[in-house]
């Protein structure tokens, strides 16, 4: 079963002369363990697609299913629970709470879900350990570098039993080495079975995905074929080893 499915999703903002058709009939499925990148220029509907996929906004028409369950049939409480337990979000500007330490930021979604503070922090610490941030757990966001802050944001998105990771320009303004480190983390999460959707205009980030879909004016206009292995790059025509 797909972890995420968008069926004919349309989103219209405003009305009359100010109407904006942000998304028009988008269909997208993401299987467990797969990473899909969504590329498109500013205003193409990338972020809208992500907020609708993450149940932060409702579509005007169409249906979103997460792990087979249609969001339209869920109560507000059920959707809020789904967001706390199953979906991890990573935003360009990290969105860490400045008054909480790294480990407290990571543990927050678990605590909001009713898990005891001690257990939540232990789970948070484990994820930070995995991401090489053991020593930084008790630092506040303003004591961390940009790359570290984004790793904490990713830790928060994958803590607990999350199986859908939604990332909007996850490498933000990071340099290319840190940007690559961020994509490696997303990629590793997918290897563990997490389904990920990464919205970006950066082809270097998108190329980490199993599939890249291209969004233009609210429509998916194209997508990449399943990638061939890298072996083909290693032989130069006309030359033998």
């Amino acid at each position, binding site marked *: 079963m797909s972890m995420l499915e968008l069926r004919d999703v349309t989103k219209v903002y405003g009305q009359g002369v100010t109407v904006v058709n942000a998304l028009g009939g988008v269909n997208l499925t993401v299987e467990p363990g797969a990473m899909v990148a969504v590329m498109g220029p500013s205003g193409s509907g990338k972020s809208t697609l992500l907020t609708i996929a993450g149940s932060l906004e409702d579509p005007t028409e169409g249906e979103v299913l997460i792990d087979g369950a249609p969001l339209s049939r869920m109560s507000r409480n059920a959707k809020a629970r789904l967001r706390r337990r199953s979906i991890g979000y990573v935003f360009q500007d990290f969105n860490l709470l400045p008054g909480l330490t790294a480990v407290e930021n990571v543990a927050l979604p678990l605590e909001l879900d009713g898990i005891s503070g001690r257990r939540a922090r232990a789970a948070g610490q484990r994820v930070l350990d995995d991401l090489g941030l053991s020593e930084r757990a008790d630092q506040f966001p303003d004591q961390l570098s940009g790359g570290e802050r984004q790793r904490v944001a990713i830790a928060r998105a994958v803590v607990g039993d999350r199986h859908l990771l939604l990332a909007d320009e996850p490498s933000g303004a990071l340099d290319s080495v840190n940007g690559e480190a961020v994509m490696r983390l997303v990629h590793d999460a997918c290897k563990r079975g997490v389904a990920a959707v990464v919205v970006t205009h950066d*082809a*270097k980030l998108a190329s980490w995905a199993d599939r890249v879909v291209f969004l233009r004016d609210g429509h998916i206009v194209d997508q990449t074929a399943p990638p061939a292995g890298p072996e083909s790059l290693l032989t130069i025509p006309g*030359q033998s080893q």
Partner: protein
Amino acid sequence: MSVRHALLALLSEGPKYGLQLREEFEARTGEVWPLNVGQVYTTLQRLERDGLIESDDATEMGPQKGFRITVGGAEELAAWLRTPPDLSSPPRDELVMKVLVALRVPGVDVHDLIQVHRRYLVELMQQWTRLKEDEAKFDLSLALVVDAELFRLDSVIRWLDAAEGRLKRAAADRATESTATPAPPPAAAPLPNLRRRTGVRR
């Protein structure tokens, strides 16, 4: 890639045998540029002829023949490293030509054409990234080579993005102009002087 200078670089570390040079060349360039055996030995012969390397004995050219770099060879290598490659004149870029030509061909959707090329480039980048993910973690040379390819392909995609944005803006400007002052459609812009602008280098 200059095989000649790569071999000089390997010999700058110390004397080596023919076979060793071939193996190290492949390892250093991340196996992205496989080299055939003949190419190594022909290049070594030329380097010896030019006095840039010398061999210990008169053994026949082959895997067991040993070489070392000369003072002249070391100077040649140092000069080559610091000489910037010729990136000054724009090379003839086939993709740029295709997009320019597409603007003039009736019935061709330039945006569609741009997307075809963009998708192809992203697919290529995906292949390069796979390589990085599997092996580059442990191989600095390969990681550097793959990064160079990714940045090069990425820059072409960025140009396509910029071209598409420019075309959209131009179309919007034309639409505004035609609403403001009804006038006959403007004549198509003259084709730039491609020969001059994209000057053929080779």
